[in-house]
Every structure is written in C-alpha cells, then in structure tokens.
C-alpha cells in the first residue's frame, strides 16, 4: 500500500520489460563509454600533473638530440642515450633564480642486455644534490645512501634489502620509491652516479658485455629547481644559448601529452556526444509511443485530478528513472571492464606515450556522478516533448482515444 507518482512511473516501466531492458542497455552502453573514457583521460591528465609537480624539477636540461625522446622517457620510461658534458651544471647554477642543480645519468647498453632488467633502466644520480629521487622514498631511512646502494622505482619487482648484480658489482636495494606516474622513475633503478661511472669504465674490461659508451663527467640530464618567483622563461632562455642543449619545462611536456590526449580521446568524446544525442532521440521516439499507448490512462489520471504538470512530471520522471538506472549500470559495467582489462589499457596508453595512474576515488565518484547525471539529462530532454504532448491532452479526448 504505497501508491505514489514514483511507484506509478516504476510500475509503468515494469510493464514492458523487454522495452525497458533494451532502453536500459542502450543508455548503459553510452554512459559506460563516456564514464570510462573520461576516467582514463582524467587518469592520464592527473598522473601527468601529479607526476611532474612532484617530480620537483622546474626545468630539465638535456643534450640537443634527446629532446623528443626525453619527453617520452619521462612519461613512459624509455631513456635516451645522449650525453652532454657535466660542466654545464656550473653555468646553470650561476644563473640568477636557480636554486639547485642535480645531474642524472641514464645507462643502457645499445642492445639493452647489460643493464636493462625487464623494464628497468639504470639512472645514476647524485645523492648530495638530488631533490627529485630521495623525496620519493616510501619510508624514511636511518642510514645515508651509499656507494653500493640502489633505489628502485615503484614498478620494479625488487624489494628493499634485495641484492642486484651488475657488471660484477653487488648492489643492495636501499629503498623503493612511491608511484610517481612518471614512467622513467617508476621503472628505474637509481644508483650513485659515481658508481655508474665506475661501472661504465669496468664494462670495457668485463668479458661478454657490450662496453658502455660513456665517459666520466658526462650526464644525460640536468634537473633544475628554481627559486620561488624566479622567471622561468628567462632562465630557460639563458640556458638555451648553449647550442648543444635543450631545455624542457614541465609545462612543455604536459602540453605535448595533452595533444596526444586530445587526439585520442577527443574523437571518442565527439562520438560520445553523438551517441548521447542519438540516445535522447531514441528516448524521445519511444516515449512518444508510450504516451500514445497510454493516452487513455493519462486521461483517466487527469479525470481523477492529475494536473497537466503532474502528467508532465510522471512521464519525465519515468524517463529519468530509466536513464538514471541505465547510467548507473553503465558506470558499473565501465568499472568492471576497466578493472578486468586494466593491464591492457595501461599498456596501450603507454604505447601512446601516456602515463597512467587511476584517478583518486573522489574523482571517480565525481565522474560517475557526472555520467549518471548526463544520463538523467538525456532522459529528461528526450521525454520532454512527449511529456508535453501527454500533458496537453484534453482529458475526455484522451479517454475516448482508447475506446
């Protein structure tokens, strides 16, 4: 004994189960697609922002030839093999507004059999000047980082305390980094830059390994941190006067990935909006049929006291209930599919130079709410005109219509 406008609408939906399920599914597919796409976009975007801001470097100075590959290196973790002279660091450090400067050295043999372990790359860094690696350690360490220590990125399978063997050297895993969303860091094995130089030298004497083409004092990248309020474009410009180097700013990397994002997801989004429109038209067509079928009932409701507005609300709320359920189902299916195929998805995004971190729960909830709200809008917009027609029926004519 619970009769209300809502239960009336629900019972109407329950009456034609096939039609209701078909509509539900159609709405679910569209909302699910929109929800998943926006979640993935959000993930790429926020991991970019998060990764690069936490990355801590305002500028990245790299040898000229590595400019492009460097961008992808940061994001997906394929290091470049160009080196420049370390002397540049002093020049950079002397520029007004530069707070700290720290080198990094990317090591890998040309065919990648010496020091690339699965997806891991070796990066030499200087623990004394570093400001981008050590802050990422998952836990605080009691002892300082030493010559035979390594730090592993979050995507590595090594654990703290494990021993690694490189070029005849035993190295101990000192710590593990939290997930940065910066591909290069998540896949890396960090070692003392001094140890890296030694290793490069020893590679010439070790049998069965390709020697590393690297000379002491060379670096792959210089990370630059600026003082608060420093004029970054000015610093970037000053450094760029050196014809052998290129400057990458965080913004510049984000822009290039955003462009990829836009091409990849933009078309998906356009398609989604087309689908939304198609959904709304479909709802419109079907609700117009529903109103026609139910003319007589609507007339009866009018006769017993339903105002035009109540009739309008009845039809619109029926559509809104249907599409919101469809939206919720779509979000649910989207989550299930993204979970099941998450490896494949991340792999494919990486292939497109896109880093990926799942957005935080709040963001997912927000995107889900937006997808469901959009579905409700589709329902309301689609049923609007049929509902208006239904509400405008003259009660007596409507009742006679069914006879």
């Amino acid at each position, binding site marked *: 004994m619970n009769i209300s406008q809502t239960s*009336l609408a629900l019972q109407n939906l329950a009456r034609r189960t096939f039609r209701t399920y078909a509509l539900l599914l159609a709405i679910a597919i569209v909302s699910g697609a929109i929800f998943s796409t926006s979640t993935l976009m959000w993930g790429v975007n926020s991991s970019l922002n998060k990764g690069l801001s936490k990355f801590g470097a305002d500028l990245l100075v790299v040898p000229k030839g590595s400019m492009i590959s460097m961008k992808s290196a940061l994001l997906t973790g394929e290091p470049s093999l160009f080196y420049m002279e370390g002397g540049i660091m002093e020049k950079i450090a002397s520029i007004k507004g530069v707070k700290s400067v720290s080198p990094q050295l990317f090591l890998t043999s040309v065919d990648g059999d010496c020091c690339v372990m699965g997806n891991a790359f070796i990066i030499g860094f200087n623990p004394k000047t570093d400001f981008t690696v050590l802050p990422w350690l998952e836990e605080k360490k009691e002892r300082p980082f030493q010559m035979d220590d390594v730090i592993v990125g979050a995507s590595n399978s090594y654990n703290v305390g494990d021993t690694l063997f490189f070029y005849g050297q035993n190295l101990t895993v000192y710590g593990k980094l939290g997930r940065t969303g910066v591909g290069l860091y998540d896949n890396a094995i960090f070692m003392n830059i001094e140890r890296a130089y030694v290793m490069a030298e020893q590679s010439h004497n070790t049998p069965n390994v390709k020697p590393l083409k690297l000379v002491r004092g060379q670096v792959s990248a210089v990370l630059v941190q600026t003082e608060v309020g420093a004029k970054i474009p000015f610093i970037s410009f000053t450094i760029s006067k050196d014809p052998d180097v290129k400057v990458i700013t965080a913004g510049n990397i984000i822009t290039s990935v955003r462009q990829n994002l836009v091409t990849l997801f933009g078309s998906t989004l356009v398609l989604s909006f087309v689908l939304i429109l198609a959904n709304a038209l479909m709802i419109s067509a079907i609700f117009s049929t529903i109103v026609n079928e139910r003319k007589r009932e609507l007339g009866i409701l009018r006769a017993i006291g339903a*105002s*035009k*507005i109540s009739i309008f609300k009845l039809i619109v709320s029926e559509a809104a209930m249907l599409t919101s359920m469809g939206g919720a189902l779509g979000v649910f299916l989207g989550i299930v599919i993204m979970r099941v195929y998450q490896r494949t998805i991340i792999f494919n995004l990486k292939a497109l130079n896109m880093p990926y971190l799942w957005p935080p729960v709040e963001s997912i909830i927000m995107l889900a709410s937006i997808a469901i709200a959009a579905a409700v809008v589709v329902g309301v917009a689609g049923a609007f005109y049929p509902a208006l027609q239904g509400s405008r029926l003259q009660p*007596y004519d409507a009742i006679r219509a069914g006879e």
Partner: protein
Amino acid sequence: MANMIDINDVWKIYDVGGEKIEALKSVNLQIEIGSFISIVGHSGSGKTTLLSILGGLTKPSRGSVKIDGTEIWNLNDRQLSAMRNRKIGFIFQFSSLIPTLRAIDNVALPVIYANGHGKTSRKETYEYAAELLSTLGLGRKLQSFPSELSGGQQRRVSIARAFINRPTIIVADEPTGDLDAQSEGEVMEFFSRINEQDKTTFLLVTHNLALARMTDKVHSMKDGMLTHS
C-alpha cells in the same frame, strides 16, 4: 436551496473533418445541493458529452458551467484539476482502471493528487478504500489486478474510486450498465445512502427507466437538447 450545478446555454460543437456536429445545443440545467437526478436519452444524444463538460473533462464550445458558484471553465489547470480531484467523483461509462495497479491502489489513486488536502493519512485512505470496496461486494478482491476482475467487478472498483476523496458531486455515466440486477440494486442503495448521509449531489446517466424513476428528477436528452420532465 442553492444550486450545486448551474449550467446555462451550453453548446458543444465537434468539428469532424469540416462537418460540424452539434453534440449539445443550448443546454440548461440546475441541480440543487444534495439532490439526486438522472438523465436518460438515446445513444448519441449527448449525455456523456454533457457529463464530461460539467466534470471538467471537456471544454464547452460556449456557455456557462458553474459548480458550487464557481465558473469552472475559467479556472486555470491547477484549480480545475483540484476541483476534479476533490469536488467531483466521475464514474465512467467504460472501464477506467489503471491496469498496473491493484484494486485497492486504483481506489486510493486520486489521493496522490490531493496534495495533502482533506488531511487524511495514508492509512485512513487505505482503510476507507477497503471499506468502499467491501461495501460494493469486493472485500475479497482488494489485491486483484483489473485483468483478474470481471467487467462488473472492474466497474465497481471504479465506482469506489469516485468516492475516495468524499466529493460533493458524483457524476455517474451508466454506472450499472454491466451489472446484474442484484449488484445494481446494491450500488443504487449505496448511492442513496451516501446521498442522504453526506448530502452528496448525484447526477446519473442511465438507460434504465425504472432506475431513473427512483431518482428525485429525471431529465431526458434528445439530439443534444435537454428536456425536463
């Protein structure tokens, strides 16, 4: 005594493909509060048209329709809907139940449009709905869906529904058309009782002259015109 219903010079002209059908021609009708009148007439004479105009369901082509002193066709939709909901109980000539609702819910249905008027609680409404159905001999069919009821039973459910908001006027279009003599007698007895108890005004359309003669006054309708006998 004051008039509950006051109809003056009401016309209804239908335009069917360019052809004008005069369903009502200058109808005048005054009905006092608490009276029980009947209208008889041949099929197609305009009885249902007249009822639907005074029930607020069809707009007259011209003329004045006052219920309880209010010119109903000057009301806005909300006011007119409220009037249909609270003042008028309409019993249709043909089945008029909502197929997705059980008998008891069909009877209680008008209450959802009453917007808390009359201040009856949900529980009281359902109690009254059950009482009405029992009075009409459907005490065992409260939970049945319309499709599970016979034509006569469906008719009685819609009769019960007309009374749920305790209207001041009952407009009944051949309410006993598909009832057997006994049920018909019971329904008429129920009508008389409510008419006497609550001073509810009744307007009954019937083909049954014997039934009509039991009412206070019989009007007859012919070719869209009302004559008083």
